[in-house]
């Protein structure tokens, strides 16, 4: 109590503590800011406020004076700020150019029902649609063109495909290495492997992408003999490599946190070192291994550069792992530069970002929760 009283009596101490506390709020503030500012740009899509239709209703410029200001603002798609700064002449000019643009639409689109469709509506984003010129409903992502096709399914399937291949490669390899290093290897081997894994973690993902592009792609094509050199399979394996250090370190952590007495008891009962690790230590650490896979999933689905360089980037809907593929992350990276700020393409790309953020938010939460519980249990019993 004495300390506390003295501490309260000093104003400098008090101010310093408040300042330090304020700074410590920054991480919470940042998470909220990310959510707000990435979500803010995507929100109009969710609210149905965006309209990407080629043919939109036209109000003759002469009618400007009969409209309420709010109607004019909405019609021209202006922000309140922009609207405030414009005089009557500018608004008139904008309405006229809008009229002219609608007159310039080629005859072939005039009677095309797709040209009137707002393709940022949910049914176009999620469900297949039979576009003019196609003989059956299809999932199509083609944001650039006269008619903007924003179906998200090819990208979601692409991301999942690449991520699952990555995990199918990374989880067994990392877990195997983690078992070997934590349970079976001699200290000398351990001294070699751990810095090796750290070095692997230090390799930037763009370098891993280049490695996949130049070496891995040719090697795997020679082994498996598939058609496209760059595809989901190559990208998935390279993606798995970037996730190996993360999965390895969490799994290894979980395995070493199992109390030594478990192993000793098993050995005393006549089990071999392998039996002790496989039948006693591994089951005890299984939640940690699961958490490693969950966090690895979050890592893989959010990785950009490897997929952007090595997956071939064709946004076609396909479940085949040997087809060229486009992921959510790679789409954002590749298309943001050409999207007009505030336009529907820009907003749909932010929607992809919001989805990624939400998915990784959940996987992180689940992963950390499992690890926390496991640690508590091990410490409680050990």
């Amino acid at each position, binding site marked *: 109590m004495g*300390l506390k009283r003295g*501490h309260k009596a*000093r104003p400098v*101490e008090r101010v310093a*503590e408040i300042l*330090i*506390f304020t*700074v*410590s709020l*920054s*991480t919470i503030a*940042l*998470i909220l*800011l*990310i959510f707000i*500012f*990435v979500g*803010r740009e995507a929100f109009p899509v969710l609210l149905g406020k965006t309209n990407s239709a080629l043919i939109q209703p036209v109000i003759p410029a002469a009618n400007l004076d009969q409209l309420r200001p709010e109607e004019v603002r909405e019609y021209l798609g202006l922000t309140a700020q922009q609207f405030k700064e414009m005089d009557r002449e500018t608004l008139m000019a904008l309405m006229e150019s809008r009229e002219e643009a609608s007159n310039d639409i080629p005859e072939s689109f005039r009677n095309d029902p797709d040209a009137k469709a707002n393709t940022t509506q949910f049914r176009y984003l999620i469900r297949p649609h039979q576009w003019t010129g196609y003989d059956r409903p299809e999932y199509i992502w083609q944001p650039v063109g006269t008619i903007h096709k924003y179906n998200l399914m090819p990208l979601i399937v692409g991301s999942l495909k690449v991520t699952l291949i990555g995990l199918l490669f990374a989880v067994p390899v990392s*877990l*195997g290495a983690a*078992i*070997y*290093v934590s349970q*079976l*290897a001699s200290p000398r081997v351990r001294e070699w*492997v751990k810095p090796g894994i750290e*070095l692997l973690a*230090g*390799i*930037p*993902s*763009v*370098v891993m992408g*280049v*490695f996949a*592009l*130049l070496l891995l792609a040719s090697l795997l094509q020679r082994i498996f003999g598939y058609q496209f050199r760059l595809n989901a399979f190559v990208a998935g394996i390279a993606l798995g490599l970037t996730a190996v250090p993360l999965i390895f370190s969490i799994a290894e952590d979980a395995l070493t946190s199992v109390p030594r007495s478990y192993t000793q008891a098993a*050995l005393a*009962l006549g089990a*071999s*070192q*392998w*039996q*002790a*690790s496989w039948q006693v230590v591994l089951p005890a650490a299984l939640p940690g291994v699961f958490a490693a896979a969950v966090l690895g999933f979050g890592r893989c689905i959010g990785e*950009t*550069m490897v997929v952007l*360089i090595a997956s071939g980037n064709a946004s076609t809907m396909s479940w085949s792992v040997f087809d060229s593929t486009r992921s959510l*992350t790679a789409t954002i*990276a590749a298309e*943001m*530069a050409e999207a007009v700020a505030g336009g529907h393409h820009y907003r749909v*790309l932010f929607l992809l*970002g919001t989805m*990624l*953020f939400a998915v*990784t*938010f959940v996987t*992180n*939460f689940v992963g950390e929760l499992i690890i926390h519980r496991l640690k508590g249990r091990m410490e409680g019993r050990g």
Partner: protein
Amino acid sequence: MKAAPRAPFHSQGKDPVALLGVSVTGFATALILVILAVILGSVVLQGLPAFSWRFVSTVPKKDFFDIESAAVLPMIVGTTIRVLVMTVFVMPIGVITAVYLTEYARAGSPYTRIVRAAINNLAGVPSIVFGLFGLGFFINFIGKNLDEFMGAEGPNFGQPAVIWASLTLAVMTLPVVIVATEEALKAIAPGLREASLALGATKLQTILRIVLPNALPGILTGGILAISRAAGEVAPILFTGAAYFMADLPKRLTDQFMDLGYHTYVLATQSPNIEKTTPILYATVLVLLLLTFSLNAVAIIVRARMRQALRAGH
């Protein structure tokens, strides 16, 4: 009495399942190391032919795919600047947050649990989402408003720039610095703090004169980890500052910059003749790896020196 159980390693030789298990896990370990060796080996072997003093010390022409004049000086400068500016922002915030968590907050209180959850989540946010955040928050919100506030002609702050890329990276690497600093603070013997308090020092004095100086090597490690993580990141800077080509080196914080990682991506994907330009690509990757690893090495040396100095001081 029966014979005592055999030593574990003996029985391993006779049990085929155990033998298989040990070989499979050993093989997984070896596979990781072999892949690592192949990556590093190929970068060094294939990067060396195009690597020269001229390559790292001159500014390339507009056509940087031309093998005769290809060079990476602006990219080295750009990457270094964005990483250093990032450090200026991330270190104070990260260190102070860690100080609060270890020195002031009660362990396990709801507030610390929320902060910890936020740190973990921040660490798991995809790097491309940080890029979107940088674009949506720093450029389109803060930058545009700054421009309006200053009444600037045309965009000055409201466009991609070194400062926005660095701030975006600072947000991304904040968890790295916090976690490393926390570890360093926790490693300090409690007796040291207690002795300081017992001698009449206040909590703040103890933190500033005893705790932080002793934790400095660990804090530096956090800084290095953050730098080496950020130096190789490309996705967060794609829309916040990286330029395809610039004739001059960046001079102000509102300039765009060329970047080693982004340049690597451009070389890998937009080359008119990938076979001809592969040597430049490998040499650029070599420079990128040398930069990240040498940043690490410098920091490790500084840390070792500091440890010695601290030991001598006690």
